[in-house]
């Protein structure tokens, strides 16, 4: 029988502790990012997700260089980015996307410059592309703490956030503070960006905080359902990607995001109500009616 060796091969990754850990940490990060992605895609903030991911790079570089927790460095430079964007917006008439692009590329370049001047302290590739398979114990702790706190807050506040984003004035009228909720959201987003940095790296964080939400948006009209589906997709693709990367020399981030994109494309074509096939069917039907 060939089945025995095949199963052994498939189970082999679980024999290594670092693999098992990579798989469940990835799934956790994937789920939290997917939660946030539902809000991000509805508000049209995809660029913001990308921007935060790039902006944290100088903070991470400095943190590794000076030996303090990377999450703190990342978080600080994320906040600097947000303030910088708000500040430049106030001072100029530039379009928002240009301002965001300007600020995040500047910070990213500063990060690269720091790394290039001190090439030995950090591996730039692991920041930009992620390296979950070689994650240190300290970093795992940081990721878990971030993810757990974020999930807890989101679980408590998800309806408030939806209301504040959907209808700000009504949110105000029922006694919510939309400004505070927005700040809370961006704090959570930068925290999760920092966590996702470990799994997929700065460049691909945008997929983690956009693609699962967009996929779920094609599949359902109910927001609670959308969150559930997105988290499922985020967790499953992340776990599977980490698992597969055992056989593929470690391109974990790439694999996770490729899987997420494939799921999205499948939904784009086959989604029961909003897929291409469904649209073609209804176009044919309405053409018949006209005829």
């Amino acid at each position, binding site marked *: 029988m060939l089945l025995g060796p095949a199963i052994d091969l498939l189970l082999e990754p679980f024999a290594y502790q670092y693999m098992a850990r990579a798989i469940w940490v990835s799934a956790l990060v994937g789920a939290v990012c997917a939660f946030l992605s539902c809000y991000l895609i509805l508000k049209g903030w995809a660029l913001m997700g990308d921007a935060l991911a790039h902006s944290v790079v100088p903070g991470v570089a400095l943190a590794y260089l000076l030996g303090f927790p990377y999450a703190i460095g990342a978080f600080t430079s994320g906040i600097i980015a947000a303030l910088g964007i708000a500040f430049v917006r106030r001072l100029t008439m530039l379009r928002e996307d240009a301002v965001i692009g300007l600020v995040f590329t500047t910070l990213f370049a500063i990060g690269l410059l720091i790394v290039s001047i001190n090439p030995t302290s950090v591996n730039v590739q692991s920041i930009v592309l992620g390296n979950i398979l070689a994650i240190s114990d300290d970093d795992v702790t940081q990721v878990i703490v971030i993810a757990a706190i974020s999930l807890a807050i989101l679980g408590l506040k998800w309806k408030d956030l939806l209301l504040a984003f959907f209808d700000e004035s009504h949110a105000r009228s029922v006694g919510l503070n939309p400004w505070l909720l927005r700040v809370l959201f961006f704090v959570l987003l930068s925290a999760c960006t920092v966590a996702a940095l470990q799994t997929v790296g700065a460049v691909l964080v945008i997929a983690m905080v956009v693609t699962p939400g967009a996929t779920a948006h094609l599949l359902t009209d109910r927001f609670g359902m959308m969150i559930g589906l997105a988290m499922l997709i985020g967790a499953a693709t992340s776990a599977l990607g980490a698992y597969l990367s055992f056989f593929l020399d470690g391109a974990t981030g790439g694999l996770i995001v490729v899987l997420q994109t494939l799921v999205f494309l499948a939904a784009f074509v086959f989604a029961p109500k909003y897929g291409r096939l469904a*649209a073609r069917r209804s*176009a044919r039907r*309405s053409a018949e009616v*006209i005829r």
Partner: protein
Amino acid sequence: MMRDRPTPSIEVNDITVSYSNGVAAVRNATFELGPSTICALVGINGSGKSTLFKTIMGFLTPSAGSVRIAGLPVKAALRQGLVAYVPQSEEVDWNFPVLVEDVVMMGRYGHMNVLRIPAKADRAAVDQALDRVGMSEYRTRQIGELSGGQKKRVFLARALAQGSEIVLLDEPFTGVDVKTESAIIDLLRAMRDEGRLMFVSTHNLGSVPDFCDQVVLFNRTVLAYGPTATTFTEANLAQAFGGLLRHVRLSGPDLHDDADQRRVTVLTDDERPLVLYGERDQEKHVNPDRSETP
């Protein structure tokens, strides 16, 4: 520039326009407009007015029926620069680094060589157009520095410089004060009197009888079209707007104590009201603004 221009006309022949998801935004719409006309396109928001405009401009292709402009297919008419378009204020990014004269010069691009280097005739046309709308002194202002009405005049100047016989205007009176509105209307009238066809999309009912000689009432399809006096009636409007208009009727007993059967009807979407006064079959359009200012 003095070459013979074809007689302006818009012929919309039984068109149906669908979104990519198969839903029809416009169904079986038919109407026809000729030269020396100001025609209003009236309908509620979401009635497919802008879809109709986009189809006339060739942005959308009807899935059935056809549009002909001055007897030509849309593409050919556009290539000849027959159609000018005055955009809604919200469609324009007013922060662009373009000056008033740059915008008007854009009307001349169809007449220029591939590098768009203006010739003497182009400059003359721009000067003339700016002069005509009374914006010459603002020519080196950045476009965003103008008031709402001035912006509209600049885009009308662009249409003039373009030399188009057909001008489409999308909601030209939004965000414009009454005084500027009447200045724009005077300009539209003058352009009509030179033989042009002006097609104005508006939900501003009050000013329609004031300056439009034709009306197309629109909601997914053409509900009625023809001369304003016979088409822009209470019954047709009620059909076009359903229950969506504020409708105030002051009939005999409310107005006076005698047996006079005349009544006042006010139709409004809370912008400028349409006021109808008279007996049922001889109601006349009254312009509230004009009657206030002698």
